């Protein structure tokens, strides 16, 4: 996609998102439509298909600058009563960003910025990495929303193709903070993929706003694996994430580059997860934050070949661009958008 096309797309998206206030339920949590959403979108080529997850079967369509595009669906049932649809546009969808609409006879649900259609996946591209936005944190020189808005505007003006946001989205995991985060998220014209952080753990709020804590997606030849770095003290090996990590890792085994992204890496995190991700079939890269600073001596993955990419906190006004090409994933210099950097964590 060239710069002109990007500009037009951004313009169209800005205009179009303004009319998407009805997305999600009134409190901002996911409703009939669970996936994809603006925290876990689908990126497909024009003839491609994607998977949607809903609370019940519905008539699905894409809605974007090009108008309304009906989707052909093949349904299957998931554990827990959820319905899964394999979705294909009835006619090729022009490149752009789309909302996913679901009508079930009683009403319509809309997930804004849920589907991105591209004409092709590039060999070389850029990824924006934002982490530790801490929406709701007070006592900063600038309001949290202003800081994140500046970062997103900078990313919108960059050549990045997608954005990873690795946790501590909120300061306390409160619904009001997630709602404010969502409002800022939709300023971004790129696909935005989120994972939770330790500050987002309040009841089941993160899941209610974004869905699964563990997932994977592919972008062209590259595979991305998102997971929650759980607290080792409560024995994360008891839960089901370890099985999903292994299963998803296998799904992206054939990728050119395998890129994990999570909130933090800690050598004392669940050993089963570490063996799966860094020993038996090591990820090429792990992208994370949490430490609110640049990587230092002693940071990194001690198991062997997985390379760590650590970005300081967005609440301090910074983010990073990663360049992905045939030679690997290359973290570029941190971009500082803050007027007063180096504030306390």
């Amino acid at each position, binding site marked *: 996609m060239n710069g002109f096309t990007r500009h037009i797309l951004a313009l169209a998206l800005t205009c179009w998102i303004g009319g998407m206030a009805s997305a999600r339920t009134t409190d901002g949590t996911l409703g009939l439509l669970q996936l994809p959403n603006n925290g876990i979108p689908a990126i497909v080529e024009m003839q491609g298909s994607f998977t949607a997850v809903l609370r019940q079967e519905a008539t699905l369509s894409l809605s974007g600058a090009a108008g309304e595009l009906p989707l052909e669906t093949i349904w299957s049932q998931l*554990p827990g009563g959820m319905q899964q649809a394999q979705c294909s546009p009835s006619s090729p969808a022009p490149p752009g960003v789309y909302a996913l609409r679901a009508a079930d006879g009683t009403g319509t649900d809309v997930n804004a910025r849920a589907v991105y259609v591209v004409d092709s996946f590039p060999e070389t591209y850029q990824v924006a990495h934002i982490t530790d936005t801490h929406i709701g944190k007070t006592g900063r020189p600038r309001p949290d929303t202003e800081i994140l808005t500046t970062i997103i505007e900078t990313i919108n003006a960059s050549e990045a193709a997608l954005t990873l946001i690795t946790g501590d989205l909120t300061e306390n995991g409160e619904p009001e903070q997630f709602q404010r985060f969502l409002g800022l998220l939709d300023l971004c014209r790129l696909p935005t993929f989120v994972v939770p952080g330790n500050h987002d753990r309040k009841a089941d709020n993160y899941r209610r706003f974004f869905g699964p804590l563990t997932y994977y997606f592919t972008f062209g030849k590259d595979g991305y694996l998102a997971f929650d770095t759980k607290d080792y*003290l*409560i024995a994360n090996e*008891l*839960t089901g994430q370890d099985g999903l990590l*292994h299963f998803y890792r296998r799904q992206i085994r054939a990728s050119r580059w395998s890129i994990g992204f999570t909130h933090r890496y800690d050598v004392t995190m669940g050993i089963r997860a570490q063996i799966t991700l860094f020993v038996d079939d090591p990820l090429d890269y792990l992208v994370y934050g949490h430490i609110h600073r640049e990587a230092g001596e002693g940071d990194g993955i*001690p*198991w*062997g070949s997985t390379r760590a990419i650590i970005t300081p906190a967005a609440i301090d006004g910074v983010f990073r661009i990663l360049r992905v090409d045939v030679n690997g994933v290359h973290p570029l210099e941190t971009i500082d958008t803050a007027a007063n950097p180096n504030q306390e964590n």
Partner: protein
Amino acid sequence: MVAGVLLILSNLLLGQTGMITYIAGGSQEHSQLSVIDLDTGESAAIGRDALDAYPAWSPDGMRIAYQSRHPDGVCIRLAYPLESRDEALSHIHPVNLRPTWSADGKQLAYVAHNDTDPLPVLVVYDFAAGKESVWGGGQQGFLSAVWLASTDLMKALNPEDQEAAESAGLFKLKEEAEQYGIVTAIGVSGAVPNLSTELFIVTPSASLPLLPFLVPDSKRYVKYGLCPDHKARQIAYESNDGGDRELFVLGRRGIINVSNHPAADWNPAWSPDDNWIAFESFRNGRRGLYRLLASTGNVTPILTGSTFDCWAPDWSPDGEWIVFVSDMHGTPQLFVVHPDGSELKQITDGEVPALSPMWQPEIKQSGSTEK
């Protein structure tokens, strides 16, 4: 796919008595030790709801040791489900994790560390003395431990290079094992950035990596999922020797790859008669339950699905049932099934996940419940 799973409110259909302990919750905020009574089918929360985890029945079936968070870290607690009481052990270290009982129920081993150094040591609590001691000569890096019920395996451990064994301290360790008992542990080995794990044998004053005596290039591989059989004559463990994660059995016949499949095999659990190993495997895509006959390596599926996982198997004392966790209905819950895969039944139906089940051993009124 599994169809027609029966949720049983009365567990009399199982032909089992006693209890299964498990953790209800599993979130970053709530995890509580719980039990389900197999006579009535009723569940009860008996823990502290303080991020409780890793429940372990005492061999007499009277107590459950578990880890639970407290203001200064994580402690080991003892729940007495028949007496509705619960108490905490006193610790040297602020963080104490993953308790495991000695075969006579007189000692409890766990790993422990302080706030500044996350590499755990192995600690043994002696109930008669009412105090803890650090085993392994203070070596750090132990991740989990299991008691060996006897020293039979030590007798079988006769490396060809007696001189090397002597210099490594194996013979002294054998003597100490006869006197105080012995623990096997998974511990960190190697150095950053090439960290690994190793299978250790641990006594009060010593610890030795076990496999290098038998497999010279053992340190190339990362071991996990340690499980001795009930007579401590063989140890099942996982290793990525061979490229993917496989189950191996170390015994008098040496070391045998018993699961041998291109998909990963995890978490071995011996049947009460020590003939079978239940385990988790991804050979059908998602994580499913399988069992293998240890003498032949013949593997048969117990339960697998294309859209859900099954994990954490534990055998009933008579070997007639296996309890496990599955998310086949959404939220992970406990299920039981015969080892041949028949008579699948759901036994919990809570709003929060039910995890980490452990079947109560047959109760032995040995009078050894003093703390």
